[in-house]
């Protein structure tokens, strides 16, 4: 499988079903940007270094995600609107295991 399907609920509450390639070294934040599901300049501000939390999202499905690392944990501990299912999209690589993933973008902060 090259492309997977992901359901993304944007900050206005509208759900989009998108396809994402697994062979382009993309992460979840980049998928959101590539479909322009969040206003440019409000997501991926630091470029994907886990240093701004602008790509925070809530994981709504039961998928097994890559384990949270120290940088992501530290950034989330300083972010706002954090919930138990919060993750930084920039730290989640797109793999075949994520097919069917459902996420919701956290509010801009």
């Amino acid at each position, binding site marked *: 499988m090259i492309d997977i399907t992901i359901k993304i609920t944007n900050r206005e509450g509208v759900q989009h079903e998108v396809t994402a390639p697994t062979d382009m070294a993309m992460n979840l934040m980049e998928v959101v940007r590539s479909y322009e599901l969040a206003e440019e300049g409000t997501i991926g501000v630091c470029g994907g270094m886990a240093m701004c939390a602008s790509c925070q999202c809530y994981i709504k499905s039961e998928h097994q995600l890559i384990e949270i690392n120290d940088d992501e944990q530290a950034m989330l501990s300083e972010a706002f609107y954090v919930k138990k299912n919060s993750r930084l999209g920039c730290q989640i690589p797109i793999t075949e295991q994520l097919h069917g993933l459902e996420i919701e973008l956290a509010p801009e*902060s």
Partner: protein
Amino acid sequence: MIEADILIIGAGPTGLFTVFEAGLLKLKCHLIDALPQPGGQCSEIYPKKPIYDIPGFPEVLAGDLTKNLLEQIKQFEPGFTLGERAETIEKQDDDSFIVTTNKGTKHHAPIVAIAGGLGSFEPRKPLLENIDIYEGKGVEYIIKEPEFYRDKRVVISGGGDSALDWAIFLSNIASDVTLIHRRNEFRGALDSVEKVQELKLLGKINIITPAEVTKLHGADKIEAISIIKNSEEIYIETDHFIPLFGLSPKLGPIGKWGLDIEKNAIKVDTFDYQTNIPGIFAIGDVNSYPGKLKLILCGFHEATLMCQSAFKIINPGKKYVLKYTTVSGINGFDGTRKEAPKAVVKAIN
């Protein structure tokens, strides 16, 4: 009034390189940046991170790129207004501009180049009820004058470098420093973390983790805060509450200058990156055009082309052709000259 040929708003890599390209055309630049140091994101957010796509540098740290750019432009003697945000712009009768900062510093130039990246960096404010009414009345997001806190009780919230560094610094000034963070681990330079640990043991910094500030109290100014630690609410009296949750870029006042905006960026003509207002250019991450890529190397290209048009506006009708630095060398405004060594012409007997 500060005078220049080109007023550059934003001292990130693109803004800094503009000074070089303008200097080759004998145009003098002055830069304004809301941050207290040049370098933009490269020095503020990721100075220790490597960049791999600067042509000619297989790998360069963002902080070193800034240092190199400053070295590259120093002969053109740029001026800097740092720690001030460009607030207003007024077009003059002769089509030049006056840009005034939030601190009232006025700058005058015939050309304005906005190289503001993603915008000016502003503090991220925690989501606390009524925090706005305490701003300037005990709640400060940026520490401007440490002496202001002498013999005062201070609560700092945050878990990064600035929270650690200011807790250390204020421990020698304030009467009482409390550092509150949502988790037990702090993210910062190793020596800062160790220093805070040491000051905690000496009783000079009170650390409360994992905890979160939930309420602010006070009639006319901050008098206390409430925190939640292990599901228990704790009331802490304080004179100041300083939340340090990093900075977030905002387009800010520039968005109200009458420039065409799309996707939180300034629309430009790709001929020379001029905006809809003649004489105002937008270069680097702050601009938008079909096919735009937010890369430092694209910003360098845009700065180079922009300077050619700036020269023509400032010197109408004056002849000029592009020169190569290898051939012509560089004449600095400081009297220095750089040039390639001449080959020796000599007979070999």
